[in-house]
């Protein structure tokens, strides 16, 4: 007769998972190439000239990778201690790097030994950069100073002692050879002019500053520190423009997409967020396996390179147009001839006897158990770890089905401490979810009814019951607040409506 009708799993709409141009753009990368380095990767810098090699600073080495190589094309190892901040000059010929031993070294990209050594800092140098005239070097150090050096004769030109904590980030202007900005752990950003002896502008970020970024137009400055990313308008005297708080751990690195339309921020919370630079809303999000310390984008966004604390360098290359077309072609793969096509177009002849093959109904395990009225077992199946965590809607649907059959109480009763703890854990995670509350609230009441007599016998269960109670109390408070807000809004809307003229006659 009629076959068993499987339990209906409610499909809930996925909110906020819309496919936008940004998702399409940022998802159009190949699977990442992962390279193990010797230590945490603190800095990645792309060479400004083709073929756009990039320098990866990790532990005591700087590796220079070609755009498509997975082996370093060059290794700079002449460091006594941890190296920091390997930066290319704008012609791609020279590379400067700081070091834990306070010496700043300048390398020729084609050579091995350091061309120049700049000694003068007393502590580790975390910031190095070339000025736009290509003859000077900016450095910032943990001895609270930042200095300008002359490359040809390796002398210190000037020293600025305005910061009151470590200087951990800095950028030089690409348009003006005298301007540079440093950020420090004393929460300030300072804009210096090499023609003057002191800073010309100071901005307070509020947290220790980890990273700085200048827009190509150099009117806007982006700073990252703590969980905040802030944008400052330099042309208005360092007025704060936007403050974004989208990460839940310290933001470590900032970079800009090649067209300047998207800003990327990487954080210790293992996420990279992509912002739209017109409204500063998050438009996309990448996940990585570990906390990210450094991030760089190749020119034209050809690849995204991220360095992580677990010393893994992840390189994602953009798919070529053929490859992205190939993927959609793969999805439309035709079924194999043997399985699907064979005999499909065969028309039966007049005397042929048709043997109908019954279509086998595939049932999930919980449905098989429900069919044989094994209610407790079906609840066990629905509460299996993977289902419970990844597909709570299945668990909820089975609970609802048991409730409909009037056997939920039987299925819940007679369980041991471990099982009950698992179920309570599930309830704590999902009870206040508006999608599931209607089903789980009666189930929670039923559990309390069934196990009322044994409350107090198991510390594990009691703790979870208390958590459940707290959760519910908090939820009730939220609901009350929401109702209050709703009431306020109703009043506002009612007063804003045009009053209808009532004709009393």
């Amino acid at each position, binding site marked *: *007769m*009629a*076959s*068993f*009708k*499987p*339990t*209906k799993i*409610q499909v809930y709409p996925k909110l906020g998972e819309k496919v936008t141009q940004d998702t399409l753009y940022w998802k159009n990368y190949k699977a990442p190439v992962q390279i193990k380095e010797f230590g945490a990767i603190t800095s990645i810098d792309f060479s400004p000239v083709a073929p756009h090699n990039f320098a990866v600073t990790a532990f005591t080495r700087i590796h220079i990778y070609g755009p498509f190589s997975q082996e370093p094309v060059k290794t700079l190892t002449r460091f006594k201690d941890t190296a920091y901040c390997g930066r290319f000059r704008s012609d791609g010929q020279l590379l400067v790097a700081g070091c834990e031993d306070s010496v700043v070294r300048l390398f020729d990209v084609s050579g091995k030994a350091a061309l120049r050594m700049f000694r003068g800092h007393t502590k580790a140098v975390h910031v190095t950069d070339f000025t736009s005239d290509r003859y000077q070097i900016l450095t910032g150090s943990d001895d609270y100073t930042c200095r300008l050096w002359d490359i040809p004769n390796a002398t210190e030109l000037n020293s600025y002692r305005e910061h009151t904590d470590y200087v951990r980030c800095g950028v030089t202007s690409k348009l003006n050879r005298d301007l540079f900005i440093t950020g420090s752990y004393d929460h300030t950003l300072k804009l210096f002019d090499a023609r003057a002896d002191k800073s010309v502008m100071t901005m307070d970020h509020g947290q220790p500053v980890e990273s700085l970024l200048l827009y190509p137009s150099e009117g806007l400055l982006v700073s990252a520190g703590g969980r905040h990313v802030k944008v400052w308008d330099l042309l208005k005297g360092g007025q704060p423009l936007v403050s974004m708080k989208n990460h839940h751990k310290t933001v470590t690195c900032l970079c800009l997409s090649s067209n300047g339309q998207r800003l990327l921020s990487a954080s210790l919370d293992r996420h990279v967020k992509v912002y739209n630079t017109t409204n500063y809303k998050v438009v996309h999000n990448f996940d990585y396996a570990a906390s990210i310390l450094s991030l760089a984008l190749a020119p034209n966004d050809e690849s995204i390179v991220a360095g992580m604390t677990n010393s893994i360098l992840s390189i994602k290359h953009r798919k070529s147009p053929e490859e992205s077309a190939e993927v959609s072609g793969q999805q439309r793969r035709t079924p194999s001839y043997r399985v699907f096509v064979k005999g499909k177009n065969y028309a039966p002849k007049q005397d042929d006897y048709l043997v109908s093959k019954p279509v086998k109904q595939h049932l999930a395990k919980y449905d098989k158990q*429900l*069919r044989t009225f094994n209610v407790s077992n079906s609840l066990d199946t629905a509460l299996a770890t993977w289902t419970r965590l990844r597909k709570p809607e299945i668990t909820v649907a089975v609970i609802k*089905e048991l*409730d*409909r*059959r*009037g056997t939920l109480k039987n299925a819940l009763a007679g369980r041991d401490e471990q099982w009950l703890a698992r179920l309570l854990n599930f309830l704590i995670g999902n009870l206040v979810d508006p999608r599931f509350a*209607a089903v789980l609230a*009666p189930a929670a009441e039923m559990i309390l009814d069934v196990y009322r007599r044994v409350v107090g016998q198991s510390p594990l269960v009691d703790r979870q019951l208390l958590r459940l109670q707290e959760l519910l109390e908090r939820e009730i408070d939220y609901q009350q607040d929401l109702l209050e807000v709703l009431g306020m809004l109703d009043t506002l809307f009612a007063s804003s409506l045009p009053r209808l003229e009532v004709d009393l006659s």
Partner: protein
Amino acid sequence: MVEHGDIRVVHRGGSKINSREPVVTNDSRFLLCASGERVKVFSTSTEECVHDLRGHTDLVTGVLLRPTNHLQVYSCSVDGTVRLWDFTDGILIKVQTCSWLMFDIVCMCVCAELFQLVAVHLPQSGDQLVEAQELSAVLSNVSSNPAATGFGRGVRAPPLRSPNAPPGAITYPKTDKDNKKGGKNTLMCIACHPKDDCIATGHEDGKIRLWRNFNHKKEYTYTTLHWHHNAVSSLRFTPEGTNLLSGGLESVLVQWRYNQESERDFLPRLGSAITHIAVSPDGTLFCTSHSDNKITIIQSCVKVSAVIQGLVNGESVRTDLMVDPRSKSLVLNGKPGHLQFYSLQRDKLLYNLDIVQQEYIHELGLQQFEVVKVAFDAPGNWMATVEERKPKAAEPEINLKLWAFDEQTQSFVLNTTVSAPHEAQITSMCFSQAADGQTSMLVSASEDGHFKAWQLPRSAYEGPSWSCDFVGDYRGLAPQCCCFSADGSLLAVSFQEVVTVWSPASWELLTTLSQPPKAIRDLCFGRLGCSKYLMGTTASNLLCCWNLLTCSLEWSTSMDVSLLLSDPLTENMAAFCCQAESTDLFVFKPSEPRPVASLKAVCSGKVTRAVFAPREEMLESCEESSQWLNRSQLYFLTQHMLLQSPAHVLPSTSVLCSMFVESLLVSVADGRSVVHEHLVHVFLNNSHSDHLCLTLNVSQQNTHRL
């Protein structure tokens, strides 16, 4: 005599076919079952109704093959006759009137409800109309349930007459006292083994007891078989006695091996509770009748080979009667969670549509999903259904589903499910009758004080599913009825005594109309030339007609209208007025208060549901009183669940007269609650003499009838 053109109410079908056990003929080709006042002959292979044996003037209560001639069948009826038919040709052979019998027994018994088992000797004679004279009481005080009486092997006429030792018949009060187990072991049904001295009894607690050596006093033994968790409603041995079949509420046919009772075979998911089981004389076919007016034919407990389905009359018709615009079939809720599409022309169920799509659990007292509302849009492309489940001490669960008609499969396919569309029960739902036919709109009104408009998004980008377009309310009152005007430009929603008129284009409240003091019960827009009128009935027995151009009351009259509906093809409206136990029907046009036609006392009791169904071809009647039936027919459902329709053109006067009598019939409801059911039940013993055994009920109603 009835004049040609006079309007009569005709019973149009929907009789129960599951009231009595079906009978399979010896060659297993035909199935006979009692259906109202007829006996229907179905083919077991094609499910078609081959013959309709008409002649009884009241409810048929028993059908039995004639043992001496297997091509003939006896039927007995409440009208006091036993008729003999040739079912292959559909001819009435003989009528035996037994009406004097009843009178006799009425004289003897004073008690209001009493059933007796009597044997009737059917005299052999050549006449067509014979009076049966010989009657002997076998047992008094038997159960009214025919399943609780059975006949065993070797039962002859003489021992049957002896009052002290009823060999094959057990009356349930005795058995109940025999095994003093207490509890719910009330006897429900009984079956006798065809060869052994063994009787099987089914009990209310789900147990089956096999009694052996029953003929020897005080030496009987019994064994208990237990699988059913609810009452066993039917038991039957196969003709060879090798198997015992049992069925009950679980809708599972259980086959027990005789003498190896631990071995059982099951045929699950037969749809609904089994009420009777019948086995063909050669043992190849089993027939089960079900509580949803269905007979299933099973080939030796393996495969369901055919299903004969009648109009399902559940506990109540929750949905209104609807007409599917495409198939012109009647749509109402049928078996739990399903909608049935019932052809009015052929009196046959077309198909059942599964609305709830959930496994039905057969258990007493379980709250199930029920289809409570259904609506179609004008071209029949969309159907909206509302299903509802009210768990004890919890919020009701409501789902709104929208179904699109699929041309390829010629049935409705689920398009959108809206869970919890409203917070409380949905009181009314209607589609807009938009003229352009492109965009449909659905409005649902609920007791939570809101009405919602649902619309298919115009852009294909958002997907072809429905979404909420507007939520309206009026002073926090609960809306009762909603109705679209003929062109879809106006929506009328009633909030207690106020009718609000909205413009669906801008969702602006255009005007309010009210006729205090009581709440509006029904709302209806006029059609065609009368589309400027809005009709409404109030709980204070007023029928009002508002003119929407002037926004004023055009006319009103005081009448207790229980149901108001409009004909979609003409300007006419029909109002059923309940007055003193009977219902009057008025047909009128909204433009004038004078009725076009009025029928007094169309039926007894209150008319709860009615519908105008369009005719397949228009009639050319020129008489003024019957012109309103030219384009459509009016069908209505009374409280006794009979489908009736006023008709005026009928083949001949004689047929018309008999049909009119038919419409007075009351239905057989299941259970033991209704007094006037199971009036007479007839059995024939399996000896080769023409004796009939009758169970007679002596009730007050019977005397009235006589």
